[in-house]
């Protein structure tokens, strides 16, 4: 079985899984970096978005792009409402309260999803243009995976440009580095946080929809992959776009390869590597030391 899969397709498979991980986690990284808020419910936004996207396609027969846009907007809107009404109250609270609050949110989301769409897993029907195989010159691979990798590269470049070249990006970077100083300089940190929170949740929604094809989509989604999202964020370093991207691709590829070679205990190595890395660099690969 192993010999049947060549290295190129193994890496492509891993990269596409890593891309989905990145799209979901990037918002979490930035919001955690900005506010130091431990938002365990981030995966729940990915789940809600995934459901909106899949149900919009299956029941309302929207096309893929329109469904993705709808999922992004709907989830971002929901997250703004939650941020304005509930999250806001806990910014100055301890981690314990934040953990408890977001675990509670996860349960509420799981129950609401079960009530709204039933406990069964939803399947994503890919548009015909993204099905089948694509000839890349050196190898044949699934069109959808190649599409995911390309989309991920596009997104990370776009985000990088926003972060490095715009006023908003500079404000975000400044706040991640030193929130008090940024506030003293007149940066409206609350507004900044609302914007990034909404955008990050929208991205998570896209990730939920794009990844539904191989991660599946059921009410337990928010808990099932929580550890992976958190690992991607903490390994990459809080508030670092490139960090999350590299970490996600690494984890995705490692997971994919290990699952082939060691179907039983592959994930163990990811946990062990994460522990070692965090002991060596508690701030993650690309994080600043003094947060």
């Amino acid at each position, binding site marked *: 079985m192993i010999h049947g899969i060549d290295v190129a397709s193994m890496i492509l498979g891993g990269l596409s899984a890593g891309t989905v991980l990145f799209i979901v986690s990037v918002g979490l990284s930035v919001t*955690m970096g900005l506010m*130091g808020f*431990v938002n365990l419910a981030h995966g729940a936004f990915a789940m809600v978005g995934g459901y909106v996207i899949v149900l919009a396609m299956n029941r309302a027969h929207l096309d893929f792009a329109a469904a993705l846009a709808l999922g992004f907007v709907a989830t971002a809107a929901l997250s703004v409402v939650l941020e304005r009404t*509930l999250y806001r*109250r*806990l910014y100055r*609270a*301890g*981690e*314990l*309260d*934040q*953990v*408890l*609050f977001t*675990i*509670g*949110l*996860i*349960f*509420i*989301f*799981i*129950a*609401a999803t*079960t*009530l709204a769409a039933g406990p069964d897993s939803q399947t994503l029907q890919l548009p015909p243009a993204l099905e089948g195989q694509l000839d890349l010159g050196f190898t044949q691979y699934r069109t959808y995976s190649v599409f995911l990798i390309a989309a991920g590269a596009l997104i990370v470049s776009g985000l990088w440009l926003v972060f490095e070249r715009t006023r908003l990006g500079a404000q975000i970077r400044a706040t991640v580095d030193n929130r008090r100083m940024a506030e003293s300089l007149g940066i409206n940190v609350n507004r900044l946080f609302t914007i990034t929170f909404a955008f990050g949740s929208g991205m998570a929604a896209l990730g939920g929809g794009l990844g539904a094809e191989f991660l599946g989509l059921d009410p337990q989604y928010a*808990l099932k992959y*929580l*550890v992976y999202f*958190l*690992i991607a964020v*903490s390994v990459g370093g*809080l508030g670092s776009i490139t960090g999350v991207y590299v970490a996600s691709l690494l984890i995705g590829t490692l997971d994919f390869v290990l699952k082939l070679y060691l179907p*039983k*205990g592959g*994930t*163990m190595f990811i*946990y*062990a590597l*994460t*522990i070692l890395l*965090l*002991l060596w660099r*508690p*701030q993650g690969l690309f994080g600043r030391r003094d947060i």
Partner: protein
Amino acid sequence: MTDPATPAAAVVVAPPDRPAAGALARRHRWRWFEALPWIAGVAFYFAFPDYLGFGADLLIAILFALSLDLALGYAGIITLGHAAFFGAGAYTVGLLAYHGIWTEPISSLAVAALAAAAIGFASGVVLLRTRGLTLLMLTLCTMALLQEAANMAHDVTGGFDGLPSLPIAPVFGRFDFNPLYADTQYLFSLGVLAACFLVVRRLVYSPFGQSLAGIRENLLRMHAVGAPVQRRLLVCYTISAAIAGIAGGLWAQANAYVNLSALDLDRAATVLIILILGGYGRLYGAFVGAVAYMLLSHFLAEVYPTAWQLGLGIMLVTIALFARNGILGIGEALWRRLRRRRAA
């Protein structure tokens, strides 16, 4: 009652004009309501003979939450991976019994405590240097690592299926663990809980416990006054792990099986919820929280699982936003208001 381990013992006879000193000196004394849980525990045995299995589970949940209270409530170590130690204890008892090495329950629990303490110590040496999100992630990953290891060592641990029908020897060579009628399980759990509670209670009122509270409240200041912060945290974490291991071992004995759910994120989250629901850092939060949670989950979760999840979520959000000290905190606030009104 003189207590040489308590510094306040020297000023037990505080003059009436120094109420603060008096309150400090009396802090560690037994109060009348501290008998209530134990009276309720014994009464439960006679009142609900058909629910002793559930009762044993409840007692084990209390013990597990109590162990977390020591680490989280007193020392302020915020962990998402406390089930690692519960699972370590459960698997120690399970492996010893399943492979026919050792089935005597009390000494098995001691071995379980040692095994869990060893893991707590080894992980604590490295983990406790970190704080915040990193600490959360490291505890979470340690637990996930143990779970994967238990899953992978299929030949020894039974992997996903776990170890079924463990042969557990009778307690004191006389009282059998009967799977159909759980009276031994219940009374044994009650006894173990009482013993562990005495240890924890003694510990948190000792100077050691006071310094833990100091570390929780102000880490920098404790460093500044020269307290051996790291060592205190490590000792506390190890003891907490040992008690969690006892809870896990007890769980394995009472149910006569072990499986991967002992090491689940679900279990770690549940114990956290129980403790915070009851109120952390106050010894009896574990009792109140476990009773409230287990009753609700036992009677609601089976009939309306979705409604239970929704209700649990709303409850957690409400507690995090409005009632940070849990049920006991609410009770205390009410009591204080009542007394003030009476005094006025």
